[in-house]
């Protein structure tokens, strides 16, 4: 332990650059960093890629040749990572409350809307990068085990993949923001869409409405290239609901919440 005080010998606040508001892109980079610099975040990512790698290896070894295409591998990689990735979106928000780091975060950036904005930006960037990594995994798989027409991947299918991945992770983020607790948010994010789909199947009168509120069916249609304008419209309405409502609730809660 040194006896001298660790502050600079100059007068307080004299450091260069003091006084400017931290730009949003810097805050987003910080949020990306916070997603990966904890033990939980790091291992969640590593596990995601290990499972995706294992899944693609199985597929490359056993799938029929007409499925071993770039598009097939890409979709498989997205499906696998898409199962876990929403958890990362959830934890971006909820870990601030469970680990009580919100105290530090909001002391440094008191405009809480900016923190939420930076987190949203980080989550979207993360999803896009994740989709690109999935594409790389798919390229490796296609190189190692090319099937028929191995390099087939339309730009439309690629864009659809990136979009769906982004919606999935952002959906997790929105639910995390609305609930501010990890466990309920994770349950909610995974159980509710399934419950919804089952409900749509079970209640005949509900079905037509459910088609416009279900996120999975139009996504399937778009993947299979059978999607038309209706599928896009259904995707838009369902995600507006699944993103918009929790985001609005969450933003209001976070702005007003007592941070202790």
């Amino acid at each position, binding site marked *: *332990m*040194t*006896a*001298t*005080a*660790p*502050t*600079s010998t*100059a*007068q*307080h*606040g*004299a*450091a260069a*650059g*003091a*006084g*400017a*508001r*931290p730009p949003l892109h*810097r*805050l987003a*980079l*910080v949020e990306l*960093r*916070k997603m990966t*610099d*904890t*033990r*939980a*975040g790091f291992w969640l990512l590593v596990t995601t890629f290990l499972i995706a790698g294992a899944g693609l290896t199985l597929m490359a070894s056993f799938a029929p040749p007409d499925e071993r295409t770039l598009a097939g591998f890409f979709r498989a990689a997205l499906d696998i990572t898409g199962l876990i990735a929403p958890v990362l979106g959830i934890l971006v928000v909820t*870990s601030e409350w469970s*680990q*009580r*780091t919100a*105290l*530090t975060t*909001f*002391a*440094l*950036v*008191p*405009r809480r809307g900016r923190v939420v904005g930076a987190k949203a930006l980080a989550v979207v960037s993360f999803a896009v990068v994740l989709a690109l990594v999935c594409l790389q995994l798919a390229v490796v798989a296609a190189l190692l085990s090319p099937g028929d027409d191995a390099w087939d991947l339309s730009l439309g299918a690629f864009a659809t993949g990136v979009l769906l991945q982004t919606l999935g992770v952002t959906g997790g983020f929105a639910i995390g923001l609305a609930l501010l607790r990890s466990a309920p948010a994770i349950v909610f994010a995974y159980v509710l869409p399934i419950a919804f789909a089952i409900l749509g199947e079970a209640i005949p009168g509900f079905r037509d409405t459910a088609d416009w509120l279900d996120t999975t069916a139009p996504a399937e249609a778009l993947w299979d290239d059978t999607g038309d304008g209706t599928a896009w419209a259904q995707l838009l309405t369902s995600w507006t609901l699944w993103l918009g409502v929790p985001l609005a609730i969450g933003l209001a809660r976070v702005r*007003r919440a*007592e*941070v*202790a």
Partner: protein
Amino acid sequence: MIAADHLTKRYGGHVAVDDVSFVCEPGTVTGFLGPNGAGKSTTMRMLCGLTVPSGGSATVLGAPYASLPDPGRRVGVLLDASAQHAGRTGQEVLAVSAQVMGVKRERVDALLGAVGLDRRAAKKRVGAYSLGMRQRLGIAHALLGDPEVLILDEPANGLDPEGIKWMRGLLRDFADRGGTVLLSSHLLGEVEAVADDLIVIGGGQIVAQGRLKELLAASGVLVRATDQAALEDALALAGLPVEQAGGGGLLVDAPAEQVGRVALEARVVLTELRAADGAGLEQLFFSLTGGDAA
């Protein structure tokens, strides 16, 4: 400079902070003293914009905290040393905040060394830290942006005696260079050693505030006698304000000579008569904590 203006916080029917006003001047250390649950932390959270007051307002450096563009560079805050991600290393905790504030990376390493967290400790996860190590990390975090104001909630908790002595030196030096310090504690001795000004809070209300020296001096005399009851009656008869002090003595808000004369007239033998030297403050503080003076 910190200013609280009639700060009030209600939770349902419970009033946690009740009409609290004070000013902390640059160049001074202000001790914020009160038992646990007196409203210290709630007041400090309101100062930092983390809790919205039910009434009143607060400013730091002349503006509401939330309107400071880059508060980390102006105000160093340590509200709870345990409120850090258990899975992040100490070094990373500082590095993340340094990135937010645009502070150079070298400052992180310099501060880690300065607060006594060596290379090995810095690379450990905060979950494996002792409370003392967390406090050291929290103090390093508060100093990261080279601020003008420090707001520290119970920073001495968990520090060993050497660490407490070090922290006192650090705060004294910080204030002597023109900084403003507000630090809370539930131990009188802790703030007595370093504070210039004192705010005593109990049950959400300020019960005493002012220069520490004046508060200590303005507490009259401590007197003991062979016949305590007779002395007490005589003092009451003379119209002097009397309070029970710790250890069976009486605390009288009057000059020593006047108390001596009362004792002489009542033919009571005094065994002790001296300036109270903060015994009054101690008494006040003990009455807040609900315990009797020991």
